[in-house]
């Protein structure tokens, strides 16, 4: 069937198979490969995107469910080459290693800060509990979110 989804501010109309996930459509049809696939069962958070402003696992949402909705992916966070404060903080604190979990991590952090601009360390942990990273000890990721919060997330 045909769906219309606003992705990073641009309306996109395209045909999808009813069993295809939002993740699949983003990566394979819309050429938005910044959103990553790992577990494909909603445990790792690598595919986190914003759906109408809320963080969701794009592997657990069907593309047809997003008809008429608004999606923001990692590619939609920076504007004109200017990094979002959360992205900037991840770079500065050394929170990025291999980077595969990072798009999902940053989108989840962005959502956390939009709903709670000054989270405590425990609230950061709660907010990112659904995003797995295998490289880091997570502490620099916490530092990054704290730095972004301190600067105001813009």
């Amino acid at each position, binding site marked *: 069937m045909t769906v219309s989804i606003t992705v990073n501010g641009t309306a996109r109309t395209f045909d999808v198979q009813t069993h295809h996930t939002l993740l699949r459509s983003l990566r394979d049809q819309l050429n938005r*490969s910044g959103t990553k696939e790992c577990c494909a069962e909603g445990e790792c958070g690598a595919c986190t995107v914003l759906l109408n402003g809320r963080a969701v696992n794009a592997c657990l949402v069907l593309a047809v469910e997003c008809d008429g909705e608004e999606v923001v992916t990692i590619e939609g966070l920076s504007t004109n080459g200017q990094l979002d404060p959360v992205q900037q903080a991840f770079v500065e604190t*050394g929170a*990025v290693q291999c980077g595969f979990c990072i*798009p999902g991590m940053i989108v989840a952090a962005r959502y956390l800060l939009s709903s709670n601009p000054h989270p405590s360390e425990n609230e950061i942990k709660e907010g990112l509990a659904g*995003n797995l990273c295998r490289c880091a*000890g997570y502490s620099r990721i916490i530092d990054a979110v704290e730095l972004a919060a301190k600067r105001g997330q813009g």
Partner: protein
Amino acid sequence: MDIIGSSIPRLGAVERVTGAQQYAADIRVENALHVKLVSVPCAHARILAVHSNDAAGLPGVRGLFTAADLPHPVPRYGPVYTDRPMLATGETKFSGEPVAVVVAETEDAAKSAARLVRIEFEELPAVLSVDAALNAQSPLVQDAALRPNDPLAGTNTLREWQFGWGNVDEAAADLVVENDYSFPMVTHFAIEPHAFLAAPDANGVTVWSPTQHPYVLQRVVAAALHFPIARVRIIAPDPGGGFGGKGWPKVEPLMAWLALHVGRPVRLVLSLEETFQAARRASARIHARTGFSSDGRIVFQDIEANFLLGAYADIGARVVSKASYSACGPYRAAHARIAARALLSHTTPSTAFRGFGTPQASWAVESQLNQAAATLGIDAVEIRRRNLPARGEAFNPNDTPADGEWNTALTKAANAIAWSAPLAPNRGRGISLGLKSSSTASRSVAIVRLHFDGSASVLCGTSDMGQGARTVLMQIAAEELGLSPDRIAIVMGDTAVVPFDSSTSASRSTVFMGNAVIEACERVKMQLRQMAQTVPGADGMSPADLLQAHFGPTRGEVIGIGEAGNAYEPGHPLGGRAAFWELMCVACEVEVDPETGETTIHKLVLVSDVGKALNPHQVEAQDEGAAVMGIGHTLMEQLVLGADGRILNLGSLDYRIPSIKDVPLELESHLIENADGPGPYGAKGAGEGGTLAVSAAIGAAINQAAGITLRDLPLTPERIWRARNEKGRTRNE
């Protein structure tokens, strides 16, 4: 600003935070067909027939292949042993081993067709444990015909080794501690599952793989295809996490054959579940007998290490020999005897995994020290101090002497954890050292091209899988050439472009590729000096001006080639001495909930002896990440097999790795820098250390907190709870 020793941000960080970084699965090649592997739902089975007509008839299916379609004999491959068939032939040997492969125009068509392939099979008894592998009555995992002239061919022992010195049998000890320890089967769980592409090209074939070792993959693919190396090109995008799981070839030879056979590009992205079935860490059972004098000095170490490999050797035997060879850890012992076996089983082939077998051995040896300390009434820090060699001491008589201030690491860690402070109820502290032999025989080559405008490209075969090799190699080139970072390009990941490198493993890249880059830069500078002698007024000219004055309108460049490595020593049990020792000390304080058995790590301290941290943030982040990975196999991770050899907790729902809520409440990383390493500016390698010593430190702390003794990892709440509640038992099953 001095760029060496400066924590400049990671190269590639911006691409990674914006989603622009292209990982293997993000690369699209025109006209690519999609590949899906088909296997049977058990580990060991005789393949009776493959019925593929229904599948082959589906729209979009372009091919369906079994071993019968491959050249005969079926091509086999492997980095050391040429034992793994491209597709299972006759029988399957582990759960998930591909029996058939579907190639189709779309991913959906490939998946649908794979579901329609019907494999008739007869399930056979599977060898799934150390005991079963050692039992002479068990079925043979590997066809004895593949092991000509091998006296062990009729057994499930792939190889065995005897290492050591002195005479353990005649050594007199006041106390002998003797125990069995077990270490679980765990999986790498890089967040990026494996993904591969292959395509015919004008010279032969190109394979895209997020491999850590492009030149190993090139050699193995070429051998499997009977191609000269020159006709195989490997493109290796930066891996989304490696940890050893992307080190050695997986299904790339099959992909290369498929691309050539169907004459089109082919693409395969494994699911996380398939990735679990593609690579894992060897489990191990270690029997340790350690003799001590009454003042806590180690008299002898007598270790029997049985590592359970999978159905094919991969690099598994090397893991066992290397870890066992230095299993005694960083301690002096007058006598040592290590008997090690690499055992085959009907399980996923085990491969390299951060620490390369040492975490398994260290769990046993360090826990032995803790028990001896308690029995002899000696503090756990003090007993280590009494056994640690001083710098320059040959603690392992056949290898590189102690090359760092290991006692300093111990003291630093003890102080940072407030070792002697009183403990609150249900709390405990533990400390442990870990020592890993680094790269033995290996080689790295780097090419530095100084371009006409004075900017430079550094070409090297290292893979940046998150450790930050690009950044460190750029820092080295910037220092050596006197260039600003934005004038340097680091080029990696294409065997058509970069020169030979043995591997990105064994914490070796900073040391060896770093030295190669330095030598390449020196050769560039030497040529510039020669050039300056022929150019009038060259004094004080910038390199760019000098190049322009020298070449004039024809333009040109200066190329320097550098090589570094350590030579192969035929007489050495490992083929070479350790280039340096990677030493880590871990100390921690934990709390165990007496009602649930749950462990909270209040603080974990890491101290590593790194020689020189070229980028301190990156080194610390490596140590922290490795430690958290170690917390995984210490507290929660374990692949559980069913009787049929299938992995019961296949996937992220049932196999848990540490999340942000599982990490220590405080995590501190300290570096010891005495510029005493063989690498650039005195650097030693780093990055695996955290995994080496975490288990025994946490284990000791849990034992103290809960008043128990556990010797089987992982130390799950259930095991801790049972040990507390079943008094009198010291060993949990």
